[in-house]
C-alpha cells in the first residue's frame, strides 16, 4: 500500500505519463492511466457489452420505426393495390435488392469472396448475435458512459434514415449486421479490417448509386451518415489496434517532435509573420484544431479538424503576404504548426483516417488535399535532416543534442533582452499562451501536491486508528482480565439444589433411569 503511494509520486515526471501497468508505453487519463493496449485488455469485455447494448437499442428503434412505418403506410396499403409485395419486382434499381449482394460478390474473381459474403448471409448474422448475447457483464460505469454517445448517434442515424423510408430500413439492417460481424473479427490485422470496412462502403455506395439514379450528392450524404454510425461503434476496437505498431510510431513521432523544439519559423521558410496579432491568432487556432483531431471518433470529423486547421493557416498566410497561399507556402506552414502542436497520437490518427474514411473524400475532395499535406508534414518531420533546414550537419547535431540553441546564437541583436534569459516575458502570443499554461500546470501540480499530502495524512490516520483501538482494547483487557469461571455444566437439572424449593408445577419431574 505505502509502496504504491510512493510510486504515484507528487512531482510530475516522465513515469507519471507512462502506463500504470508499467508496460513502457504512455498512458492516458481517458484510459484511467493505462496505455491503449492495457486498456484494451482490461476492457475487452466492456465492448462486448456495448455491442450487446447497441443491438438491443437498434432493435428497439427498429421496432419503433416499423410500428411508425406501418401506421402511416397501412392506410395507404388499403387504397393502393399490393404495394409492399410488388417492391422487390420494381427493378434492380430498388434498394430492396440488397440480397443480391452475395450473388454479385461471387462473380468477382479478384476479391476474397468469403469475408464479404459472411457479412450479408443471414446465418452468420444470427450466429454472431447469439454469441454477443452470451457476453459477460462488464464493469457498468464505463459501458454506460460509452453507450451514451453511441446511443445518440444511433438515434440520429435512425432519424436520418426515416426520411429515406424503405431503403432507409435496408441500410439500417445492413449496417447493424455489419457491426455485429466486425465484432467477431477482432483478430484480423488492421489492413484486413480496413478492407472489410471499405468493402462495405463500396457495396453500399454502389447500391445507393443505382437507387439515387447516379446522384452522387445524395449518395455522399447517406454515406457520411453511414460512416458516422459505423465508425462511432467500431472506433474503440479499430483505432490504433494492437496488431499494428501504430502506437510505437506515435511515441517515436512524439519524441522526434520534442527533439526538434529548436526549429524556427525561419529555417522552414514559412511565410507567416507572427508579429502581426491577427496572424498569431490564426496560428494558435490552427494549433488547437490539429490537436483536437485526436478527440474525434468519426474519420470525417477528424478530417474536419485538419481542414479547419488548414484554413487558419491560409488566413495567416493571406494576411502576411496579401496573396492566396500556394502549396509552396502551405506545406512549410503546416509542418511548422505540427511541430508546435505535437498533436497527440498523430500516426494513429493518420492511419485510422487512411483505413476507415470514406475513400471518395480522401481521393478527390478538399479534405483529402489537406489530409495528404498532413501526411506529407509527418513524413517530412520523420526524415528531416540538416539539409532540409539549410543547416550544416554540425549545426544540426549541436541543436539536436541541445548544446546550442539557434535563437540565442543567431539573434543576439534581435532579442532585446538577450543578456538575462530569466524573468523574460515573451512577446510571442504562442509563448505567452504556453507560459500561461505552464503556470496553470504548476498551480494544479501544487494543488495536487497538497491534496496528496492530505490524502497521505488521512491514510496515516486510517492506519493508526485500528492500532489505537487495538491498544485501548489491550489496556482494558489487561486492567480487567477476563476471568473464566470454571463451570461444570452437565445434565440440566443435576446438582440443582434449588429445584426442591420450586413450586410444585415447576419442580422437575424425575424419572427413574
Amino acid at each position, binding site marked *: 500500500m505505502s509502496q504504491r503511494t510512493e510510486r504515484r509520486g507528487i512531482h510530475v515526471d516522465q513515469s507519471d505519463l507512462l502506463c500504470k501497468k508499467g508496460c513502457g508505453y504512455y498512458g492516458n487519463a481517458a484510459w484511467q492511466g493505462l496505455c491503449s493496449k492495457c486498456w484494451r485488455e482490461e476492457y475487452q469485455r466492456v465492448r462486448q457489452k456495448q455491442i450487446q447494448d447497441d443491438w438491443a437499442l437498434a432493435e428497439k428503434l427498429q421496432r419503433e420505426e416499423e410500428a411508425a412505418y406501418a401506421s402511416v403506410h397501412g392506410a395507404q396499403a388499403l387504397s393502393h393495390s399490393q404495394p409492399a409485395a410488388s417492391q422487390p419486382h420494381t427493378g434492380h434499381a430498388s434498394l430492396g435488392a440488397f440480397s443480391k449482394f452475395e450473388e454479385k460478390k461471387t462473380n468477382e474473381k479478384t476479391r476474397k469472396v468469403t469475408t464479404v459474403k459472411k457479412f450479408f448471409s443471414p446465418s452468420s448474422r444470427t450466429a454472431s448475435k447469439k454469441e454477443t448475447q452470451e457476453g459477460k457483464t462488464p464493469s457498468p460505469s464505463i459501458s454506460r458512459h460509452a453507450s451514451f454517445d453511441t446511443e445518440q448517434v444511433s438515434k440520429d442515424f435512425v432519424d436520418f434514415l426515416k426520411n429515406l423510408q424503405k431503403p432507409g430500413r435496408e441500410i439500417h439492417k445492413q449496417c447493424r449486421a455489419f457491426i455485429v460481424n466486425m465484432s467477431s473479427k477482432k483478430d484480423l490485422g488492421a489492413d484486413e479490417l480496413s478492407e472489410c470496412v471499405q468493402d462495405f462502403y463500396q457495396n453500399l455506395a454502389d447500391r445507393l448509386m443505382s437507387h439515387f439514379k*447516379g446522384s452522387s450528392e445524395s449518395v455522399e450524404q447517406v454515406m457520411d451518415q453511414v460512416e458516422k454510425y459505423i465508425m462511432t461503434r467500431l472506433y474503440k476496437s479499430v483505432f490504433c489496434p494492437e496488431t499494428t505498431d501504430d502506437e510505437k510510431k506515435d511515441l517515436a513521432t512524439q519524441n522526434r517532435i520534442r527533439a526538434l523544439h529548436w526549429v524556427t519559423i525561419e529555417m522552414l521558410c514559412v511565410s507567416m509573420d507572427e508579429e502581426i496579432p491577427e496572424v498569431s491568432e490564426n496560428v494558435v487556432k490552427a494549433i488547437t484544431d490539429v490537436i483536437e483531431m485526436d478527440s474525434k471518433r468519426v474519420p470525417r470529423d477528424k478530417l474536419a479538424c485538419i481542414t479547419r486547421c488548414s484554413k487558419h493557416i491560409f488566413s495567416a498566410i493571406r494576411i502576411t503576404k496579401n496573396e492566396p497561399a500556394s502549396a509552396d507556402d502551405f506545406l512549410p506552414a503546416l509542418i511548422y504548426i505540427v511541430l508546435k502542436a505535437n498533436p497527440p497520437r498523430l500516426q494513429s490518427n493518420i492511419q485510422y483516417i487512411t483505413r476507415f474514411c470514406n475513400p*471518395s473524400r480522401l481521393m478527390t475532395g478538399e479534405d483529402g488535399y489537406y489530409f495528404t499535406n498532413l501526411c*506529407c508534414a509527418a513524413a517530412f518531420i520523420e526524415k528531416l535532416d540538416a539539409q532540409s533546414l539549410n543547416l550544416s550537419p554540425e549545426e544540426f547535431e549541436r541543436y539536436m543534442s541541445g548544446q546550442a540553441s539557434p535563437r540565442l546564437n543567431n539573434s543576439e541583436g534581435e532579442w532585446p533582452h538577450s543578456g538575462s534569459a530569466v524573468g523574460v516575458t515573451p512577446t510571442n502570443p504562442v509563448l505567452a499562451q504556453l507560459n500561461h499554461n505552464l503556470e496553470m500546470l504548476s498551480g494544479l501540480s501544487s494543488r495536487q501536491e497538497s491534496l496528496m499530502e492530505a490524502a497521505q495524512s488521512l491514510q496515516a490516520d486510517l492506519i493508526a486508528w485500528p492500532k489505537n483501538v487495538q491498544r485501548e482494547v489491550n489496556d482494558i483487557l489487561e486492567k480487567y482480565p477476563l476471568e473464566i469461571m470454571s463451570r461444570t455444566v452437565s445434565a440440566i437439572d443435576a446438582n440443582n439444589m434449588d429445584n426442591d424449593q420450586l413450586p410444585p408445577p415447576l419442580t422437575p419431574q424425575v424419572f427413574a433411569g
Partner: protein
Amino acid sequence: MAAGGAGGNSGSGNRTYSFKVVLLGEGCVGKTSLVLRYCENKFNDKHITTLQASFLTKKLNITGKRVNLAIWDTAGQERFHALGPIYYRDSNGAILVYDITDEDSFQKVKNWVKELRKMLGNEICLCIVGNKIDLDKDRHVSVEEAESYAESVGAKHYHTSAKLNKGIEELFLDLCKRMMETAQAEERLKGNGASQSASSRRGVQIVDDEPQATPAGGCCSSG
C-alpha cells in the same frame, strides 16, 4: 483509377466523373499562375478572391457529361521532392510544368516523368507544359526537343502563357477528355457494370493475388 469513376449505373448519361490532377514542377515555373488563370481568370492580381491557390476545383460539362476536376498544387521546393508519392497517389492526371526560359526546369520535368511512369504506370495521363511562351525571345528549351520528348514517353505537350492566357483552356479540356477516355476504357475492361473491385477502388492496380506494390516513402500508404 476508380477515383475517376465515382461509381455509377450503366446508363452513363447522367454520371459524374471526379478527377484528381496534380501540378508538378520546379518552383517559379508558373504552376500557381496557371491554375489561378484557369479557375479565376486572373494573373498577378491583388484582387484574387480565393483564400488559397493550393487546392482548386472546376466543374465542367464535356459532351453532356459532368466532370469535377480537383487540381492539387504541390510544394515545389527541392527539399519536399521526396514527398511526391504522397501527393500523386491516386491521381488521374499530372501536369508537369517547365519554364521555356529555364533549361533546368525541363530536366526536372523529365525526372518527374520517369518517376510517375515507374510508380503509376500508364494509367495516369501526363501533360508536359512549356509555360511563359510570352518570353519566347529568351527561350532555352527548343520546341522540337520538348515535343519529341513528350511523344517518346506517351505524354502530350502544351504551350502556355499564364500571363497572356494562352493555351490554358485547351490544356485542361484536352486533359479531361483523355482522363474520361481512360476511365471509360477501364470500365469496359471491368465489364458489364459489376461493382468495382475493392483494390481498384483505392487506385491500386490489380495483380491477381499477388502482394500489391506500395509507393516507397509514403508515410501513410495503406500497405
